[in-house]
């Protein structure tokens, strides 16, 4: 669990954060906070699918479901089964 959280947070920082000083937590709002725009969310979805060998249907990959690392973990768990 913790491992998954950290892996996702690490990816988010590497992929999206422009300002190195920005403090990022598992609950930082990514999409509503303007860090990840909904258009660039695709690469995050693709990362999750490849890393956890799952397939997230588009209707489940809503901006709300992707808004924090914690929520993303919930979503991924749902598909890992």
């Amino acid at each position, binding site marked *: 669990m913790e491992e998954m959280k950290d892996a996702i947070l690490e990816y988010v920082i590497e992929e*999206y954060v*422009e300002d190195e000083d920005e403090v990022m937590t598992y609950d930082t709002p990514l999409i509503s906070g*303007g860090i990840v725009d909904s258009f*660039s969310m*695709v690469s995050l979805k693709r990362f999750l699918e490849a890393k956890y060998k799952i397939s997230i249907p588009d209707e489940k990959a809503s901006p709300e479901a992707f808004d924090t690392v914690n929520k993303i973990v919930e979503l991924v768990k749902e598909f890992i089964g």
Partner: protein
Amino acid sequence: MGYSDKVRKMYQEQIKGIQDAGIFKQERLIHSSQAADIEVEYPAGSSLKKVINMCANNYLGLSSHPEVVKAAHEGLDSRGYGMSSVRFICGTQDIHNDLEKKVTEFLGTEDTILFPSCMDANAGVFEAILTDEDVMISDRLVHASIIDGIRLCSAMHDTFKHSNMKHLEKKLILHADKRLKVVITDGVFSMDGDTAKLYEMVELCDKYDAMIFVDDSHSTGFIGKTGRGTHEHCGVFGKIDIITTTFGKALGGASGGCVSGRKELVEMCRQKARPYLFSNTMAPVIVAGVLKVLDILSGSTERRDKLEANTEYWRKGLTEAGFVLQPGDTPIVPVMLFNAKLSQDFSKDLYDEGIYAIGFFFPVVPNGKARIRTQISAGHEIHHLDKALEAFIKVGKKYDILGKTKQEIIEKYGL
């Protein structure tokens, strides 16, 4: 009655939601032609006010240039008002062809196809040249019309951090297995006024076997020594595979756009791009106007030189007054205020001082990066810029932000 009270109410609520969020857009009516000095009715119903326009894309001051207006009149007289047809049925005149040739020459490309607008060019081009075997890799800050074009195309898409070449290279490596790769960027980014690193991008595209696409809407006519665009400025003239640009900004400002580049790609657009196939192209009167604009710009760099001098003067004035500017050297000069409400109040006070400049805030720009975006024109004279500067300083003093750093402004007003 399909449009029942219930449906109407639903929309009314949505509109109210937009108003409540403070992002409801309202138009201000201009009662004169587009220029540095305009007459505006604002708020609606009030008497006309003479203001200096600091937010038009009229970079070269050609929107109401007498020679352009005259050429448009002549075009109207000789080729009529409308075509009543799309291009490939009976909607193509000799002057459409002439304009495509002239644009090709001006941009230093192989061929050009006109579109009703650059929005249409961007919406149509990707779908016409790519399939689901390909990938589009776009800068995160590209214009909304490019995003629409990407959405309409079945190729995979991915993004890279704004102007971050390391991140772009990573993505090029990640997608090495794709049949075709296209790297997509704006030449000059319209919100920040910064220029894409085209030299580095072309190098990366060569190295990883990718094509490059540049939207030069905020560059064509004035960026680069002879105003050809960012490819001239960055030393990669002739090396951009696809350029899209608009005639709705510096090049007379009426409307219309184009895709210009490798001749096979342009031909694919002619065969397959839907906004080209299913919508009328630019009206003859506009084509005649743009032909004159390109004539003027090919003959002399006077206007872009004046624009460059005006831009330097404006940036220097604002910097010396103690404003925080977004760094850059294009005529898009964003005055950073960070707080959304401050940007709106500031814009309103400027208007009272006779200066028309708009505040931009989330979601148009990232949260906490609200600003007044000023845009300089060759149509501005020094007295316009001096008056605008005076107003900016007066309002800047009122809000006590002159000489303050980003952190100090944020501490004072919040994000």
